[in-house]
């Protein structure tokens, strides 16, 4: 087996749990445990799931002028947020293309914490340093920080109990320093599954202790450890975009339907002028959700063309994500299509490996928690 892949501090634990490990951006990560993706997905929807996402990148941005730096980097109102707030934002290029999507955590006017996509860590930190040119210190703590996500309807009460009742009052998209099962961590009420939950950042050395305590608490509740396979099916049902699939340098947040995370009033961040024009004048293509018609058994995957056989050339768009809707049923996905075809109910045709498959545009999230 390959040994040159990077391992998180929980790698041994995954092995003991019988995880199947795959190469994910150079990391040896669990794609599923013994229960399998479908059961893991359902455990998160019905009870609670634990995810090792320690491969993600973490950094601190610090200094007396850090707010100016963060203001330039982020499309959302991060710099002006109150301390204790977690803010989802895009990082854009001057073209409006997306460098990454990430969450900033405002600790104080002088200090921000940020969690970025694993595969973009190096690129993002270089981008921070390059663009902020000494306005702040950028301290990479990825190699010493572990991250465990606890997601599902039973997650809040479970983690709150392990934290001695200190975390139950934390509201959505806020965070606090906490002690969970005796482990010091930063607890944020955030996630990537469409469920309520926490993401807990701790020191590498403490990660196995934290994970073991969480798993012991989760098991009697019907909880499971969850691999990257279900992480992907969960985020797709919740219509949460994935960088590298649905977001990239060639598409803007407005095209991706993330205009809600682009705040333009009295602001001038990197990419703002392009995004301002797109918000005012509209865009030519848009990321939409679709459902494959139930008469057909097929899944659309990343890269499959959206076609119209009555026009030349027939390719009018591209599928960026797709797969089974494990809790919503059927085959679902996301695709960039011309705006004229983006309204809910519009029929689409997707070329699934040489077979034209009918699909319909669906608005909103495929799955919404009750």
């Amino acid at each position: 087996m390959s040994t040159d892949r990077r391992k998180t501090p929980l790698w041994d634990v995954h092995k003991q749990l019988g995880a199947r490990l795959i190469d994910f951006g150079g990391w040896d990560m669990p794609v599923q445990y013994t229960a399998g993706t479908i059961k893991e997905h359902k455990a998160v929807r019905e009870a609670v799931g634990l995810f090792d996402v320690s491969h993600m990148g973490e950094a601190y941005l610090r200094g007396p002028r850090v707010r100016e730096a963060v203001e330039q980097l982020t499309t959302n109102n991060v710099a002006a947020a109150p301390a204790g707030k977690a803010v989802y934002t895009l990082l854009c290029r001057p073209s409006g293309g997306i460098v990454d999507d990430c969450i900033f955590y405002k600790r104080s006017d002088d200090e921000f914490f940020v969690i970025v996509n694993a595969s973009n860590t190096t690129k993002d930190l270089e981008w921070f340093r390059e663009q902020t040119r000494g306005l702040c210190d950028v301290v990479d703590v990825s190699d010493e920080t572990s991250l465990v996500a606890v997601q599902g309807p039973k997650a809040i009460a479970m983690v709150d109990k392990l934290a001695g009742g200190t975390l139950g009052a934390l509201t959505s998209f806020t965070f606090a320093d906490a002690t969970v099962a005796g482990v010091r961590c930063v607890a944020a009420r955030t996630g990537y599954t469409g469920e309520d939950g926490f993401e807990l950042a701790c020191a590498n050395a403490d990660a196995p202790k934290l994970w073991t305590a969480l798993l012991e608490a989760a098991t009697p509740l019907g909880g499971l450890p969850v691999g990257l396979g279900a992480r992907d099916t969960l985020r797709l049902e919740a219509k949460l975009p994935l960088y590298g699939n649905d977001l990239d340098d060639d598409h803007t947040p407005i095209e991706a339907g993330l205009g809600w995370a682009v705040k333009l009033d009295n602001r001038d961040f990197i990419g703002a002028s392009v995004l301002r024009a797109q918000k005012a004048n509209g865009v030519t293509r848009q990321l939409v959700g679709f459902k494959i018609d139930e008469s057909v058994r097929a899944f659309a995957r990343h890269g499959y063309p959206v076609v119209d056989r009555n026009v030349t050339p027939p390719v009018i768009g591209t599928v960026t994500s797709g797969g089974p809707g494990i809790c919503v049923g059927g085959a679902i996905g996301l695709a960039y299509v011309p705006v004229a075809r983006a309204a809910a109910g519009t029929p689409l045709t997707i070329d699934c490996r040489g077979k034209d498959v009918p699909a319909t545009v669906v608005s909103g999230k495929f799955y919404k928690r009750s």
Partner: protein
Amino acid sequence: MTGFPSDLRYTNDHEWLKAQGTSWRVGITQFAVDQLGDITLVDLPKEGDLVTKGQRFGTIESVKSVSDLYAPVSGRVTAVNAALKDAPESVNSDPYGAGWMIEIEADESSEVDELLSAADYTTHVSAQ
């Protein structure tokens, strides 16, 4: 790894074959199933279709990926496991039984000599 049934023959593409009268019953091995994860769709040819050794005869989709199924021998499809349409998960739970896919009446018996024994297939898999 659990052993591969010794009464079956195998291909490098992780399919198994079992002599079934004058035909070969075909499915995928436990190793393939473990690699794929939860199977959500199996697309198979129709009875009477001709398949060519090494060519795609169907597709199998798991939660995460889509894979081609390659014909292990050339011949005519004499039976198709229609139950997989509504219960593709049978391939996960019982790959050598309820998870079988098609039966092929082979053109040339000589092709069959190239199929692997359980021991050879075990060697092939452990090299992966």
